């Protein structure tokens, strides 16, 4: 059963609990998946609209040189585009499954994107607040956002895929 947009997520205004949430990415690189996370991000759901942003400067990977490289115009260009942003246009819910259509902006380029995921039921946490969880995932073509760095493998194939998976595991608390 599909529920209309306004009821897809719990009503009211909900803000992210950053300690118990994570936002990251994964991309096929050489022989496996390379992953990174954004340490600083903000997500809110209000009036049935989900909005999120992540600070490029907060990106974390396992190599400090690569972290520094990710800030440059070769990748995210943090100087001119310090944030990645997302805004939903519609949210459909079927059982606990979600389908979210929206727009993501990376490096100043905005593209439509479809996110799939699941939502939990609301619970009351030990501190008396109401919260629920979202697990969201989408795949984007980084080339469309001008994040086009690559290197060649010895066989001539590109070392890094253009397809990047963005994931978010979020816990949202109801604002009083």
């Amino acid at each position: 059963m599909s529920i209309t947009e306004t009821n897809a997520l719990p009503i009211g205004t909900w803000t992210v609990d950053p300690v118990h949430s994570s936002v990251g990415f994964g991309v096929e690189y050489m022989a496996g998946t390379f992953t990174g996370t954004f340490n600083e991000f903000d997500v809110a759901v209000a009036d049935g609209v989900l909005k999120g942003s992540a600070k490029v400067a907060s990106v974390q990977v396992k190599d400090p040189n690569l972290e520094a490289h990710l800030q440059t115009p070769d990748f995210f260009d943090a100087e001119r585009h310090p944030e990645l942003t997302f805004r939903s246009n519609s949210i459909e819910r079927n059982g606990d499954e979600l389908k979210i259509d929206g727009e993501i902006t990376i490096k100043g380029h905005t593209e439509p994107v479809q996110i799939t995921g699941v939502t939990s039921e609301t619970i009351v946490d030990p501190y008396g607040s109401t919260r629920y969880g979202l697990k969201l995932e989408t795949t984007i073509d980084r080339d469309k956002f001008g994040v086009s760095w690559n290197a060649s493998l010895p066989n001539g194939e590109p070392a890094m895929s253009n397809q990047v998976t963005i994931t978010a595991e979020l816990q949202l608390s109801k604002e009083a």
Partner: protein
Amino acid sequence: MRVLGISGSLRRDSYNTALLRHVGELLEAEGADFEIYDGLRDIPPFDEDEEAFVADAVSDLRQAIQDADAVFFTTPEYNSSIPGVLKNALDWVSRPFATNAMRNKPVAVIGASAGMFGAVWAQADLRKVLSTMGARVVEGEVAIGHAGDRFDQGHLSEPNLLEEVREVAQLLMAETRPKVMERLAA
């Protein structure tokens, strides 16, 4: 706007240094201040063991890049790539990587060679190196092949090539303006 010019050639009658002088004239005509860096010969071989006590020549180059709003490179091509002296100097400049002077610096690359292809591979390699260092590399390219026929006593004799150089200079200035405004506002 302050633009630093770096030629990858040490040769006294270098086509690339001559080309860089043209770049300077074009930039100055557009209102920029232009200075050619002439210390490339003095940069010691890069050695991580020496990083705690860098030579004055290295500090001077880092400072010159730091002080410039943009950097304009001209490069010859040696064995299908960048001259070793230029790569060596950039290896020094790139350290420490996360805060190196080239980060977010608008840069342009053009080149001349005595051969027919106009240093296109050296230019591509130099763009790759500068991008990796974090520079903001503008897209314009000028490849002047058969440089011996195109320079007359240090002057580029073909107006259409000068026009191509002017276009790259203007691209670099457009890329640099926001940073200059930022610097002046600070």
